């Protein structure tokens, strides 16, 4: 199948952002900010970078994608549906009783979800385990982990970074959603990260950076990361709530879903932005 070009990827990302707004307003709760902020990266991953066959979610040759900051799962659910993992209509069931689309991802409940997440810091360790297994099995796929800047408050994450360096896991790429915001406020106020680049470098990782909304640059950075023979962190500079003016960079939208009026306004903006 032909892979979409940059113009087409932008259209897909816009559609996914609309999906997210529609899902969250129906659910009545959920995390809008981070989901919208990571939409461009998820779009590039599933429509351009990942080696995967949506009809075969357990294919052993697939690249693995671990969502460690599980609260932004609406963007993953919408992207999986748009990529063909399951029917779009399921998106309406987000956070409802007996739904496959749990409030935080649950392995086994939905095709394409590799792990269960929610408590921060746990995904990267599991990604390290998967990367080690791939090495032992002499498999060639990559393990992509998505984590957030606020998540770097968790000690477990740094434990995992040390292990990844020790075992020189060149098949592991950690994409950091760096929007400067966490649930209670700005990361610089809650817990300053100082130079994330220097920290990663001190932990023996290669560091790349990208604007998290520049499709062309995201592709270039991810492709470069795949060629590096040691663990790579991609610091993705993102805007929380990207694409919806009244949500952008407002930490109150970290854990919030829009009401009907806000959703209508957001959709109008997004449709206009198309």
């Amino acid at each position: 199948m032909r892979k979409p070009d940059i113009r087409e990827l932008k259209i897909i990302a816009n559609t996914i952002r609309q999906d997210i707004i529609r899902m969250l307003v129906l659910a009545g709760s959920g995390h809008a900010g981070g989901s919208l902020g990571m939409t461009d990266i998820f779009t590039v991953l599933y429509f351009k970078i990942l080696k995967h066959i949506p009809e075969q979610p357990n294919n052993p040759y697939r690249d693995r994608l671990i969502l460690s900051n599980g609260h932004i799962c609406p963007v993953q659910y919408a992207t999986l549906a748009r990529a063909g993992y399951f029917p779009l209509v399921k998106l309406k069931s987000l956070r409802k009783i007996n739904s496959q689309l749990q409030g935080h991802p649950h392995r086994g409940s939905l095709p394409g979800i590799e792990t269960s997440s929610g408590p921060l810091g746990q995904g990267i360790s599991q990604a390290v385990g998967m990367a080690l297994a791939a090495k032992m099995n002499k498999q060639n796929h990559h393990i992509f982990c998505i984590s957030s800047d606020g998540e770097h408050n968790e000690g477990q994450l740094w434990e995992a970074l040390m292990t990844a360096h020790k075992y020189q896991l060149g098949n592991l790429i950690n994409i950091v959603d760096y929007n400067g915001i966490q649930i209670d406020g700005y990361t610089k106020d809650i817990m300053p990260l100082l130079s994330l680049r220097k920290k990663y470098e001190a932990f023996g990782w290669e560091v790349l950076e990208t604007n998290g909304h520049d499709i062309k640059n995201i592709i270039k950075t991810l492709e470069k990361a795949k060629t590096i023979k040691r663990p790579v962190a991609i610091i993705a500079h993102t805007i929380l709530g990207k694409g919806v003016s009244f949500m952008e960079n407002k930490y109150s939208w970290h854990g919030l879903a829009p009401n009907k009026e806000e959703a209508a306004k957001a959709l109008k903006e997004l449709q206009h932005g198309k």
Partner: protein
Amino acid sequence: MVSNIKQQKNNWRSTRDGFGEAMLELGKKNKEVVVVSADLAESTRVQPFAKKYHERFIEVGVAEQNMLGVATGLALEGKIPFATSFGVFSPGRNWDQLRVSICYSRANVKIIASHTGLSVGPDGASHQALEDIAITRCLPNLVVLAPADFNETKMATLAAAKHQGPVYLRFARQASPIFTVTKQTFIIGRAKILIPGKDITIIGIGPLLYEAILAARELAKKGIRAEIINSSSIKPLDAKTILASVKKTGRAITLEDHQIHGGLGSAVAELLSQSLPRPLKIMGVSDQFGQSGQAEELWEKHQLTHPYIIQHALKLLKK
């Protein structure tokens, strides 16, 4: 069935040694078996495995939270990881990782805890895992095992490897009597009657069970026949065997090197109170921390040795 091995101290072996031997056997038998260590390979007896199968040995350093995450990732890719540490650290320090990464995903990880119970001895309270059963027994999808001696720990380890799904396996540091026989296969969910009896049921776990055997021998001299049950499978609990025994005897004692809250005694109390209410004495550590000392001294101080079992048995028999 109790083996006839003469209980000379020089014949004793630790449950952790039983685990170590089983791991060597598993390393040879199953190429998917891997060991994850948090800087306690020697103490948890996985060093021989590490030497022989170094390509399947992952050392993550003193990082128990990460250890369980790494083990989960390995398990989700088809490996059978044994994540090894002391009970106070794992599951003591990494319960959230156990709950969400492993149990919620039903990842095929074996969580291995050595140095459980007061019997850790001189290291003192910080290193004596007395709450581990309580915090594992409540987790969905998790099997909880506490074998009694060297032989049974070996068998339980092999059974854990065969079981598809997460297993928590607790054992101890110190050398202890060997009283189970290797011919009996270890079946998860099955208790074993070590000594048949009709007057009182004594249900125990771990090396402390030997005190129950000693108590039964003393009680027999008084004409009282105690039925001794090894409930090494704490979850699933063998309700059938326990209920049949208590139906016959009408009273029960539970015995464990663990807090009385949330452990084996609680599991038996949950069962009996709902299916067959009968007088029950729960013997364990009574809402306290341990301290330094020899294993036997600590068991004595916490009134877990056979003279105390006999006292409680006689009291229950008057009811």
